């Protein structure tokens, strides 16, 4: 049996990961499109920069976000972000989860775009359809499955986000405590029973994500 506290944590986790991934999606589409379609000076540097969160310890990514969102940072001076009090809210947790899983999403979308036959895009244009309309009528529908696969995989990674989240959002029960943080707390306080239930939930979720992902890329 699940207690209401666990249901709340479960829903918060889905919310944090889902919103984080969706907020980062436009950027991932844009970056994937650039990497698959454009050649420019410094492209490999750009590519490397986007992949950083994949290899950096998430704590470092979290620290970078903390730095950007705190009072007096560049973002604060430009957009007044410090006054929005994003830090230590579920929104901060979302952003952390989204950014840590961004490289996975970008990579999948880049591959999806690259696998679209460029001849088809050219044919569409030579039939009188402009570049962007062709993107929406040909490129996007033909890479749809790969994009979904990227989203779901990134979602799976976002659910498990710990290091960056704890730095920018803390571990506030009922506010920013997601599944991994709840597991950590339960283990710390010796509540093995709850820990086990959270772990089980995580495993089920992971299975679900991987099965959906597999279905998408096999089609």
């Amino acid at each position, binding site marked *: 049996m699940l207690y209401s506290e666990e249901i709340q944590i479960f829903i918060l986790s889905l919310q944090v990961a889902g919103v984080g991934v969706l907020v980062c999606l436009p950027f991932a589409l844009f970056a994937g499109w650039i990497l698959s379609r454009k050649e420019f000076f410094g492209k490999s540097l750009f590519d490397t920069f986007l992949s950083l969160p994949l290899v950096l310890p998430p704590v470092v990514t979290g620290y970078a976000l903390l730095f950007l969102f705190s009072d007096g940072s560049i973002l604060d001076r430009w957009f007044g972000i410090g006054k929005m009090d994003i830090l230590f809210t579920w929104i901060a947790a979302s952003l952390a989860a989204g950014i840590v899983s961004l490289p996975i999403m970008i990579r999948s979308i880049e591959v999806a775009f690259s696998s679209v*036959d460029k*001849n*088809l895009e*050219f*044919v*569409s*244009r*030579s*039939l*009188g*359809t*402009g*570049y962007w309309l*062709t993107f929406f009528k*040909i490129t996007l*529908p*033909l890479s749809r499955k790969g994009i979904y696969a990227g989203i779901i995989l990134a979602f799976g990674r976002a659910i498990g986000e710990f290091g960056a989240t704890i730095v920018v959002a803390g571990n506030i029960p009922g506010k920013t405590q997601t599944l991994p943080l709840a597991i950590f707390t339960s283990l710390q306080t010796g509540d093995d029973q709850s820990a086990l239930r959270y772990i089980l939930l995580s495993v089920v979720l992971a299975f679900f994500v991987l099965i959906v992902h597999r279905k998408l890329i096999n089609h």
Partner: protein
Amino acid sequence: MEIIDNILEVSLIKKFENFELKANVQFKRGISAIFAPSGTGKTTLLNCISGKFKPDSGLVKSFDTVLFSSDFKIDIPPEKRSIGYVMQDSSLFPHLNVNENIYYGYNKLKDETMSIDPKWLVDLLNLGHLVDRDVKNLSGGEKQRVALARTLCSFPEILLLDEPLVSVDNFSRNHILKTLQDVNRQFHIPIIYVTHSFSEILTFADYILFMKSGKTTRYGELMKLFWELEDKEYFDDEELQTVLKVNVLENIISNGITKSSVNGLILWTPLIDQPEGSVVNISIHAKDVILANKPVEGISARNIINASITDMKSLDTSVLVLAESNGVSIMSEITHESSNKLGLNIGEDVYLIIKTNSIYVESVPEL
């Protein structure tokens, strides 16, 4: 409509790592065939015209519109060129069905009577039963017919075709050729057509462009250039043949033969399953035309034509003889030995002997 004769001016250079295209040609209205061995840059030329490739330098001009000019830094994007391009592999959109593919670039003109009606094309290309199908389940010939319909619906000013009949069955082949001729006649859309098949060119084209190792060499009227050809390599693998448009005069069904005429010259052909008065393409292989230097009697062949030799051309292993009767030219290919024995010379009279069964009637698609 015959106002501008030069419909497409191309003079460009496009370099690749180990290949260079140098094209210099002014295409004329009508149907032009590009005929050249593979790897000579035919497809590259079409890619440069359509805007798929950007030439390194030069000019591409369609009618009065400059599509590309390195001097004036003009490079019109493909969607604004109004050049229809059917590629070898048909490139249908896999996420759309046949009908959606056909209507993808449908260009409905303000004056509807001037537009190409997609329904007319669907009928003409015999695609009616396929419109709701998934494009993945089509045969090669069906795919090319859909690709052609799709391109024509966008009502291009010029139509480029890159070996559209390579993977196509005979039925589709005749449909496609017939449709192209109809479209060319009705809508005055000039066609530039890449092919490996000389017989296709003979039945189909008005002009021919020769290319060799990345360069355009000659362009002009098909029959003139063909006969002037020095290079036999162009038609090494091809059976040389004469193609004629004949009028069906009388079908003698009991004997399985048809009496037909070209310019008043009577030809007996195998039964042509078409009503009297219709016009049909026939072809005669040069190797099947026997020559005699005096009248022959008591011979089974039904076509004995008194003609005079207008030209002769020595090939590696044979002699090609062009003979004319009633303004109709027919090719005969004979051995050097026979040619010497008969003592054939340009200007002399000769008898062409052709068996009824040596005449091939191009199957006419049902419409």
